């Protein structure tokens, strides 16, 4: 869609103005303009910013040590001093959840970043060069996609061992095929447009065409996919921690808190209630943002 806009002749004023920006900046500006029109994308966006701020600043504001046991308040329910109550060691659940929010978010963001970058690169190469390269790469992606849900991550953890870094690695690898597929599709749709042919005729190198002309134009579906993938990365990562295959207690990663708290549900349900609500809020924010964005960027795909 953006490509067509650019093919249209522009009057001189507009042309001068547009020339100042790099293709990426232009693409991002275009993106922001559409984003502003969609209410739910904006709500999701603000919620994400709010949660990031809480994760960054929150840990400095909480007044309780997340590792210091205080058995006098063991299993105590929510109160004015301890908003989310205290756990089986008498640690303040609210402080732990605030610390954990950052850890869980970091895992979701980093695994999407690493897996996304690899997937984008693979997808562009596959779509741009086509033929045999494409066939081989896509068969390999099919193999990775044959492992549904957290199965691939679980299999990788069984080799790598359970730790925060390994969860990031496992979930990243799980991200690669999903990004590669989407980017490949968009690249295929873009590479046959006239202006790309024109660039080729002018003698532009493949690298230049890919990074200056194709990538900026397929940025929108990538951002949508990234937002939706962060949501599922957070669910997978906290799920892995919950079954003991991810971040290990005493880390306050949200899934790890749930994993510890489940043993005490008979005595203190509040230990498991709040961390789960926070995971849900986090996932909801990225889902709403991604959904809204998709609608805003491509009205045809309104789903």
């Amino acid at each position: 869609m953006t490509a067509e806009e650019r093919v249209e002749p522009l009057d001189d004023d507009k042309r001068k103005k547009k020339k100042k920006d790099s293709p990426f900046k232009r693409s991002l500006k275009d993106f922001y303009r559409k984003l502003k029109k969609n209410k739910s994308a904006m709500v999701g966006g603000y919620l994400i910013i709010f949660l990031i701020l809480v994760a960054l600043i929150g840990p400095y504001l909480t007044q309780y040590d997340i590792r210091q046991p205080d058995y006098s308040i063991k299993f105590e329910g929510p109160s004015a001093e301890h908003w989310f109550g205290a756990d089986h060691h008498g640690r303040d659940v609210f402080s732990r959840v605030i610390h954990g929010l950052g850890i869980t978010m970091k895992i979701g963001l980093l695994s999407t970043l690493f897996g996304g970058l690899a997937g984008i690169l693979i997808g562009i190469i596959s779509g741009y060069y086509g033929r045999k390269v494409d066939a081989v790469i896509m068969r390999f992606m099919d193999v990775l996609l044959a492992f549904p849900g957290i199965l691939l991550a679980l299999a990788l953890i069984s080799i790598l061992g359970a730790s925060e870094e390994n969860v990031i690695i496992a979930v990243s690898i799980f991200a690669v095929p999903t990004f590669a597929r989407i980017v490949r599709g968009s690249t295929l749709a873009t590479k046959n447009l006239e202006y790309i042919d024109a660039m080729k005729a002018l003698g532009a190198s493949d690298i230049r065409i890919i990074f200056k002309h194709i990538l900026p134009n397929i940025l929108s579906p990538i951002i949508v996919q990234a937002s939706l993938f962060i949501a599922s990365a957070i669910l997978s990562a906290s799920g892995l921690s919950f079954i003991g295959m991810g971040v290990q207690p005493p880390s306050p990663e949200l899934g790890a808190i749930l994993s510890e708290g489940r043993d005490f549900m008979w005595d203190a349900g509040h230990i498991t209630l709040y961390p789960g609500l926070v995971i849900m809020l986090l996932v909801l924010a990225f889902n709403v943002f991604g959904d809204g964005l998709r609608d805003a960027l491509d009205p045809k795909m309104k789903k």
Partner: protein
Amino acid sequence: MFQFIVRRLLQLIPVLLGVTILVFSLMHLTPGNPAHIIAGESAPADTIKQIEERLGLNDPIPVQYFNFLKDAIMLDFGNSWRTSLEVSEELWPKFWVTFELAVYSTIFSIFIGLIAGIISAVRQYSFSDVSIMLVALFGLSMPNFWLGLMLMQWFAINLGWVPATGWGTPQQVVLPVITLGTMGAAVVARMTRSSMLDVISQDYIRTARAKGLKESIVIYRHALKNALIPVVTVVGLQFGSLLAGAVLTESVFAINGMGKLVIDRILARDFPVVQAAVLVIAVVFVFVNLLVDISYKFLNKRIDLD
């Protein structure tokens, strides 16, 4: 149609080979000598040698892979390193538990999702539409293991209506199925709604209405049939994720299925069992996708899948 199925089956071969190679490499990428894992670090060198010989660990890797593949096709996954039972003997009873859980959950998500999606689409922008879509959004964003914990807390611990753990009796089935099926129901509801809205705006539906057909006939006989096509794909994909997602649900409700088996054996470093379980789930998933493709073609003759 027959040709199409045969071609699809042939296309599966490279994917299945890839899957077996990946699963096979799992064991070989694992640090440590399997013989040491089986016999213990302090085992005498003779014993280690014997085990290595028996498992064929001294053969070249391609030979080992070929043997692995040959056995896997015959559903022979060797013996567990921990219990010395045959892996398939341990795996199948647990596989059926997980399979049952996934099937019930899929039925649950189709049932709830379809009804909710149709109501939403037929009464677009009404109060029920907005609330259904809001609930679906929450269902999509909720960690299912947490939902399981909460259901267990309310209905098993506080109210005592159903047992908190186990699998088999109808009472034991309810909570795990809701837990595992909720996300699928949300996905199906959203898909049904958008697909219905898509179809309702098409010319042939307007024609049906113009003919003076009753609205209910237009919706259920004319629109729904075509609206269901994309939903089938979603359900198929869901089923695979449910098989894998069952790992978490089984952990919550202490169900003795394949998920629990996998977790236990990862911790015990019993790789043949882990390998076999991962392979079985992946292969089932690949074939479910094939079925989805075929039914897609069958439902919609306009689509040319080549």
